[in-house]
């Protein structure tokens, strides 16, 4: 047994986190910043954070992830990192020539209280930021929230750093997709295009973190939200924020500061959440939904009805980030599956409330914890086994020990590919996810069934 020390008996822990279901803020900020065209993320802290965050993102995407760091030494940690940041900004613009540097912080610079607005302002005044180039920032203390919080903070930092309200609306619709895969961002753009909408998607990592091999390396690939779009976001007719944890802060900032009304929705995983997304897009954009989108929806409903017997009543444990897990729980319940054990490492009582509502509607009470960890999830599974486990790569240890079919979902996925290429959002994403779930369940049946009951046709 890999996790041989995990006991069945659950004791309360107040201080020790074991096998976290979250990581820290700056990696989310780094991921978000990679979704701006021509942007180099910058980590204002000691260099270990930056190395870890780049490595984790690289392992997840199998793609280059560039980011710079202030490389704090002990001296800077005591007396402030201002000089490090000035030097870094000058070196980055000279050597790497990005259009934007997006600075985030770590627990180090936050604890010592480095003043980013003042420091970035100083760099501009000292002429260290070339004409037409930009430095934006977000404070991302690692001891608050999780990587999801860091993502949200940097997305808000993009709005604050660029969006301008000229008073004249441009007829475009902002969509903040939240922390989803490049493939998901592509899918959101495809759906909006089918509906004939002119959208501003930010951040947008498609084309950045699912690139091609051509013999040429571009530190700043073609993808990413153009700066002109980020500026124009202030004149949009509305914002759809997908996911309360990931996207709502930026949308609300645009609402209060630029008078762009916003609608905060669940991430469009599964049938119902995608329905709400498409319907809201229709209303905000003042367009009608084309037959092609309705057809995709019908295909998903068709698959659910075709294979319902294999979903029905199956117990599921799932762990991940709140926006994703909420939408996924709803999707599973809509298939008449039973999400039983649900954990997110990211704090927030709204999470538990939403999950309770979703499962109560299905007629049962799930184990749910926000700010929980995978050690607890594993103990719950030991006490009440499940038919399917959904979560990031770290769940493979639980899946192997408990012999549970395992669907890789969320961040990070370190040991498989596909997440960067095939969407999980929208109706197409729903189809893709269901085929994977069915494959897991039926492969298990094929493995376990007796020879006389072994079936050719499902």
């Amino acid at each position, binding site marked *: 047994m890999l996790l041989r020390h995990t006991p069945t008996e659950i004791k309360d822990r107040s201080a020790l986190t074991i096998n976290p279901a979250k990581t820290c803020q700056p990696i989310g900020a780094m991921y978000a910043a990679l979704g701006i065209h021509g942007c180099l993320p910058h980590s204002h802290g000691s260099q270990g954070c930056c190395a870890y965050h780049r490595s984790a993102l690289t392992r997840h995407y199998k793609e*280059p*992830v560039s980011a*710079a760091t202030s490389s704090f030494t002990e001296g800077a940690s005591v007396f402030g990192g201002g000089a490090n940041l000035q030097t870094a900004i000058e070196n980055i613009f000279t050597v*790497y020539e990005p259009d934007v540097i997006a600075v985030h912080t770590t627990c180090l610079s936050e604890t010592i209280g480095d003043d980013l607005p003042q420091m970035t302002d100083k760099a501009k005044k000292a002429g260290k930021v070339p004409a037409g180039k930009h430095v934006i920032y977000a404070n991302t203390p690692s001891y608050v929230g999780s990587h999801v919080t860091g993502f949200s903070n940097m997305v808000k930092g993009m709005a604050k750093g660029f969006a301008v309200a000229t008073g004249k609306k441009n007829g475009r619709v902002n969509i903040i997709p939240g922390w989803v895969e490049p493939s998901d961002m592509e899918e959101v753009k495809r759906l909006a295009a089918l509906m004939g909408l002119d959208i501003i998607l930010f951040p947008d990592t498609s084309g950045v973190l699912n690139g091609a091999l051509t013999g040429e390396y571009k530190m700043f690939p073609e993808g990413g939200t153009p700066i002109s779009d980020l500026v124009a976001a202030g004149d949009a007719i509305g914002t759809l924020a997908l996911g309360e944890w990931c996207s709502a802060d930026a949308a609300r900032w645009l609402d209060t500061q630029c008078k762009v009304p916003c609608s905060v929705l669940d991430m469009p995983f599964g049938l119902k959440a995608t329905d709400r997304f498409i319907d809201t897009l229709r209303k905000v954009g003042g367009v009608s939904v084309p037959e092609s989108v309705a057809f995709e929806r019908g295909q998903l409903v068709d698959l659910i009805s075709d294979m319902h017997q294999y979903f029905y009543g199956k117990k599921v444990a799932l762990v991940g980030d709140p926006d994703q897990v909420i939408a996924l729980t709803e999707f599973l319940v809509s298939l008449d599956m039973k999400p039983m054990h649900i954990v997110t490492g990211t704090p927030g009582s709204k999470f538990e409330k939403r999950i309770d509502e979703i499962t109560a509607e299905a007629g049962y009470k799930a184990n749910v914890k926000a700010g929980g960890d995978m050690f607890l999830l594993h103990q719950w599974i030991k006490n009440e086994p499940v038919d399917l486990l959904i979560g990031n790569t770290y769940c493979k240890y639980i899946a192997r020990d408990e012999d549970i079919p395992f669907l890789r979902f969320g961040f990070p996925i370190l040991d498989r590919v596909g997440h960067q290429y095939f969407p999980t959002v929208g109706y197409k994403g729903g189809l893709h996810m269901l085929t994977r779930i069915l494959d897991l369940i039926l492969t298990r049946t094929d493995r376990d069934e007796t020879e006389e009951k072994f079936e050719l046709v499902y």
Partner: protein
Amino acid sequence: MASTAKKLVNWTPTDVKAEMLAKYPPKVARKRASQILVNEALGNETPEISANVRTIPGIITMRGCTYAGCKGVILGPTRDIVNITHGPIGCGFYSWLTRRNQTDASGEGDENFMPYCFSTDMQDQDIIFGGEKKLEAAIQEAYDLFHPKAIAVFATCPVGLIGDDIHAVARKMKAKFGDCNVFAFSCEGYKGVSQSAGHHIANNKIFSEVVGENDAEKPGKFKINLLGEYNIGGDGFEIDRILKKCGITNIATFSGNSTYDQFASAHKADLSAVMCHRSINYVADMLETKFGIPWIKVNFIGAKSTAKSLRKIAEYFADPELTARVEEVIAEEMPAVEEVIADVRPRTEGKKAMLFVGGSRAHHYQDLFAEMGMKTLAAGYEFAHRDDYEGRQVIPDLKVDADSRNIEEIHVEADEKRYAPRKSSEEMAKLEAAGFKFKHYDGLIPDMEHQTLIVDDLNQYEAEKLVEIVRPDIFCAGIKEKFSIQKLGVPMKQLHSYDSGGPYAGFQGAVNFYKEIDRLVNSRVWGYMKAPWQENPELSATYVWE
């Protein structure tokens, strides 16, 4: 940024260096110039390089931090210690199973905490009011849940700043438990300039808190410690297989596939064999000073180097039976190695490699490439010191600069009861006269050919320039570099994680490596960069379907 448009036209190493520096602001160019060296080593003259100095902000370094060097590298591989990261969640999360230190916990009742990540997950109130109480509670909860032999605590950046006294908490809990050693490492990420400071901090504490704790006699003959071998991809397993076959007893590996008891018994060995000099030379020195155990540098990367290292160990013990057995083992193992070399060498001969790896492998792996007939054109370390480049004879000249001055140097004296010279001074003198070098490492530079490039703390910009200009057949570094190099159409081999392969140490490891490099440099994929319509000129007004 870069493209491969510029084709190389007989660049000299000096030109390459100049091109790497051309774009830098003057201050950066001056500093980098002292860390990039065209190897002009002749005879005993080794040129001087600047190393172990602070990283240039914004340069996109490959380096990590002190915590990574301490918790991630040295203590991470030990399976029966509960390692608690005291800090916000990230540091613990990122060092959770991401280094491939394999461990064999298959014995009855064996403990294995390596698949777990333990953290105090500090919150803002812990930053404001201090995290000592939470740390104490976390240690208690770990003890109650697991009853481990030992609990280790690792500081992260904010811990030093807010003034949590982790050592006081550790002492208190150790006294309270009685049957569980609790110790702490002040390995805040901002200390020193790289992972290297973390190695030193780990060496100090593991030596002062654990080494020598178990005085029970260990069975076996020809007892050695294998220092600085972390069992990535099973390297340590392969070395242990060979040692066992030779009849050599490995008391303690620091720290691949290790246990608490191995550390506690390390003073029972009669020789320390050092693989990774950078990370563990401190323990090697302290074992000698306190207990009288001499150390030698060995290298089990490369089949010939493995044979040479085994002979060196046998020569030290000066036992005819051991010497004969070592020769038998080499004779048994080499045919399989030579068979694979004969197969791959026609396809690898003359190919060019570049190696930029942590603090040790950029040197060791050159032996493997040489066995395949491949040349190393450029190499360097992320965080090695001048002695790893130039050899330990420069140590007296090393200046500890302001950034590393606060890394603790602990003073060790000979143990009154347990110090015992393993060899008489006459025996030592005789071995030295026969060319035996104790407590010495020659470094990377003397082993590299004339006019090769040596680059310390290589950054992203320089890596790209090197690859564009020189077009090596293979580039070796880590995960952060892998995919940008491959985008340029150049095969890239990770020499930290081995790209989930390995082992590469010892005889069987060498075979694995030859095959892997053959696969990489001769893969068909590198021929697919251009689509057919990109390679052929445009047609005009003709149909040519035949």
